[in-house]
């Protein structure tokens, strides 16, 4: 079959863990946008959900850090965090090792990947799943981009990863949905937590919606760090989705919510042929 759905969504742990601190209306509207995305996703009848995430030392550490890794297991565990901190119950999430393997083999034609037959999901995947597949009834294939421990893969390699994902998805009979999850500008887990550069976010989202490859790849990590914080390195996940979907994006929701430490974003992208 092919890719049937593509989008991006925020994953900050405050989205579920610190709801009580946020403006109730802002939180409710954002959660509503997340639930609406779940409906659109479901309507495309996917057989599997690929989540391109930027994990935070749940599995991968500086002793052996892959730029890109893909899960290849029949089930995963999560969240790795204290469930009372994240306010998401610990559970088992279905995977599909055989499908993972087929995708990985095809992706390896153009991108060097690590694979992982064991993977504990952190908030970077559990927060999106909490809203998108709350019954954990859709097989998930996790993909990780190192956005935490520099040196990081350059942005054009994140683009190449997205292209490889698309080519691989188009070559399997299953209907594949793909979600990228990361922050845009944000300074999480620092005293600056809650700082959001809204103008920078809106400029990035404009480039993403236009699927302007050159403009998306024009960011340097130095400028991103200065203007969008260390959390801004996670734009790699959004860039991979643009490369996979190839179409125009539609931002369904964007609003900075400081206690969630991120400009809360829900956006779909049209799946174009070329």
């Amino acid at each position, binding site marked *: 079959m092919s890719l049937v759905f593509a989008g991006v969504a925020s994953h900050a742990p405050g989205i579920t863990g610190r709801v009580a601190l946020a403006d109730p209306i802002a939180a409710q509207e954002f959660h509503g946008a997340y639930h609406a995305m779940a409906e659109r996703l479901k309507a495309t009848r996917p057989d599997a959900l690929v989540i391109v995430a930027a994990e935070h*030392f749940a599995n991968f550490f*500086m002793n052996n850090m892959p730029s890109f890794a893909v899960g290849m297991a029949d089930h995963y565990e999560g969240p790795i965090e204290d469930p009372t901190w994240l306010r998401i119950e610990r559970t088992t999430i279905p995977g599909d090792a055989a499908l993972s393997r087929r995708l990985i083999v095809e992706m390896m034609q153009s991108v060097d990947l690590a694979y992982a037959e064991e993977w504990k999901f952190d908030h970077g995947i559990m927060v999106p799943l909490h809203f998108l597949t709350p019954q954990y009834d859709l097989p998930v294939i996790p993909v990780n981009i190192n956005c*935490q421990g520099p040196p990081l893969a350059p942005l054009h390699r994140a683009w190449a990863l997205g292209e490889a994902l698309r080519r691989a998805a188009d070559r399997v009979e299953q209907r594949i949905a793909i979600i990228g999850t990361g922050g845009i500008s944000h300074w999480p*887990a*620092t*005293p600056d937590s809650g700082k959001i550069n809204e103008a920078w976010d809106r400029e990035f989202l404009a480039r993403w919606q236009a699927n302007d490859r050159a403009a998306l790849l024009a960011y340097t990590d130095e400028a991103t760090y200065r203007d969008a*914080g260390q959390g801004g390195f996670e734009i790699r996940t959004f860039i991979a989705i643009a490369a996979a979907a190839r179409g125009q994006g539609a931002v369904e929701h964007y609003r900075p919510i400081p206690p969630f*430490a991120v400009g809360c974003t829900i956006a779909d992208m049209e799946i174009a042929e070329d």
Partner: protein
Amino acid sequence: MSLYQMQKFLFAINRDSEVQRQFRANPATLLSRYELTPEEHQAITTHDIGLLFVLGANGQLLMHFAAFLGMPWADYIAAMREGVKRHGPVRAGVYHMTTGMDEKVAGV
């Protein structure tokens, strides 16, 4: 600076309940496995989140160690700010403080 070793400890304790048990039972024995400077060792044993932040601990590791120690989120943010006040700017890594000492952007 043995920042890598200090972060390796944080990585281990964040994901392994057996390491958590050992840390609670006998922190000195557990920490002997890691090549830490005296300053890093002391920061860990005294639960000094502010100093660990200044020494360059990645926030995604430190955040969960603070939660493990039972610190509410607001106290953890305040501890990092206090660390910078006492020890000066963050010395390594990418997790820095760019806001003012009293600039509470998330309201805490």
